């Protein structure tokens, strides 16, 4: 199975995967989203603060007349529990992480980040570019001028070739869209500084009211100093790129996941290939009800587990009753709510 990453599908205008917020494999609304959880594919929410957000797919997007690109969705962070008192180590942000193999073409070059933002809270916000080793940060300020209005922001910087950027399939360049940051994460703007910092002291607290919304759309990271009009990829291509990091299969009754055999009267062992090769051996989770379809009939699976995970496939093991050892079978979903997800996020 071919490995799929940004660096091997041809010349790229945008080094951000799902910058158009079109792929939402995990769902479209995430109430009380936890830190380190994902909403739109590839977009991770991070916080260490009392603030509570609902992350969701929003159809409020920049108009085609404004952006010269027709988006369908933006990513919305809606404050449901405000945090007006920012502690020194508090922070809340959206994080996008690039793989080393996709960061390598950017190292030593000027890069330009552009995006559309619509926020209730006006004032100074920050973007922080970091390396995975958390040893360097580059903070750039931008201003939300008008409340609840789509505005395009652009910024250019150079990734120094003197720094160590991983060149493999682990995380390398990380981009934080900061909503709030305590003084422990403050540093100077427009220069590479040591350590992992997220904002300048000018950063507003965009989490201080339940009236606050923050929408992000059309995020693009390009080589060079010019921010071009947002260009989307084919949906199939964008989805496949996302599936390198996360795949959700099923959600249809009797959806087949993998074929195998009943190695005893109680155990089914099967093989489930992934849709595309994943970044690394993924974490695999089952949700819902499953059964094994075998010659003996439909055998309800009392438990399902996964072992021998590889980027290309995983071994399924299901516990059943009433099986006949030696028969073949297929693990299937028992209803439209069952699914198996594989995660290889950075």
């Amino acid at each position, binding site marked *: 199975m071919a490995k799929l990453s940004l660096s091997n599908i041809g010349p790229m205008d945008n080094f951000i995967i799902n910058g158009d917020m079109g792929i939402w494999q995990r769902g479209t609304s995430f109430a009380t989203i*936890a*830190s*380190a959880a994902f909403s739109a594919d590839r977009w991770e929410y*991070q*916080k*260490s*603060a009392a603030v509570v957000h609902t992350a969701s797919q929003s159809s409020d997007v920049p108009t085609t007349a404004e952006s010269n690109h027709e988006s369908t969705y933006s990513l919305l962070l809606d404050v449901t529990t405000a945090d007006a008192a920012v502690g020194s*180590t508090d*922070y809340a942000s959206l994080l996008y992480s690039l793989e080393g193999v996709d960061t390598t073409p950017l190292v030593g070059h000027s890069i330009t980040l552009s995006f559309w933002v619509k926020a209730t809270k006006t004032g100074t916000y920050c973007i922080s570019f970091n390396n995975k080793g*958390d040893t360097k940060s580059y903070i750039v300020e931008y201003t939300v001028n008008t409340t609840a209005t789509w505005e395009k922001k652009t910024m250019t910087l150079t990734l120094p070739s003197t720094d160590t950027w991983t060149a*493999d*399939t*682990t995380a390398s360049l990380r981009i934080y869209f900061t909503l709030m940051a305590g003084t*422990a*994460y403050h540093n100077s703007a427009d220069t590479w500084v040591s350590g*992992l910092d997220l904002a300048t002291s000018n950063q507003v607290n965009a989490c201080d009211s339940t009236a606050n919304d923050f929408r992000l759309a059309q995020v693009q990271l390009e080589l060079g100093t010019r921010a071009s009009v947002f260009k989307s990829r084919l949906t199939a291509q964008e989805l496949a790129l996302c599936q390198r990091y996360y795949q959700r299969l099923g959600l249809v009754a009797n959806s087949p996941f993998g074929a195998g055999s009943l190695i*005893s*009267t*109680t155990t089914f062992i099967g093989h489930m290939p992934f849709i595309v090769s994943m*970044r*690394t*051996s*993924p*974490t*695999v*989770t*089952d*949700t819902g009800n499953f059964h094994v379809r075998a*010659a*003996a*009939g439909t055998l309800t699976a009392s438990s399902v*587990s*996964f*072992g*021998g*995970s590889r980027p290309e496939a995983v071994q399924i093991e299901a516990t059943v*009753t*009433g*099986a*006949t*050892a030696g028969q073949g079978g297929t693990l299937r979903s028992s209803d439209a709510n069952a699914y198996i997800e594989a*995660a*290889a*996020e*950075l």
Partner: protein
Amino acid sequence: MSKMIVPTYTYKLMDSGVRRSDGACIPEAESNRDWKMYQEWLAEGNTPEPQYTEQELIDKAQSEEIGQLRDELRNVVTGQFEMMLELFKLLKQFTDCTNADVDPAILEKAQAWTQKLARLKEIS
């Protein structure tokens, strides 16, 4: 950077990797972020649960035993049906009779045995 607020999990050993308390099966892969979190959890002095509890081992063994006994019982029943049908054929041969000469009740039983035998072979 201070530690993120992330859910607190426990872990259980598997044949390979570990199973997290939310059901996720985490492979032993250095570049898997969940495996890294597990390593950090271990470094904090935590200990994973064994793959099977004592009760789970007992349940597993019993379940296997029940399955084996069921297979053996099926083989015994199949053998008995085959034997009875063979005897029925032999009886007809020795007595030189046709189905018309046989008591309809016995014939009915023989037909039922044939059907049951076919069904047992089908599902075995």
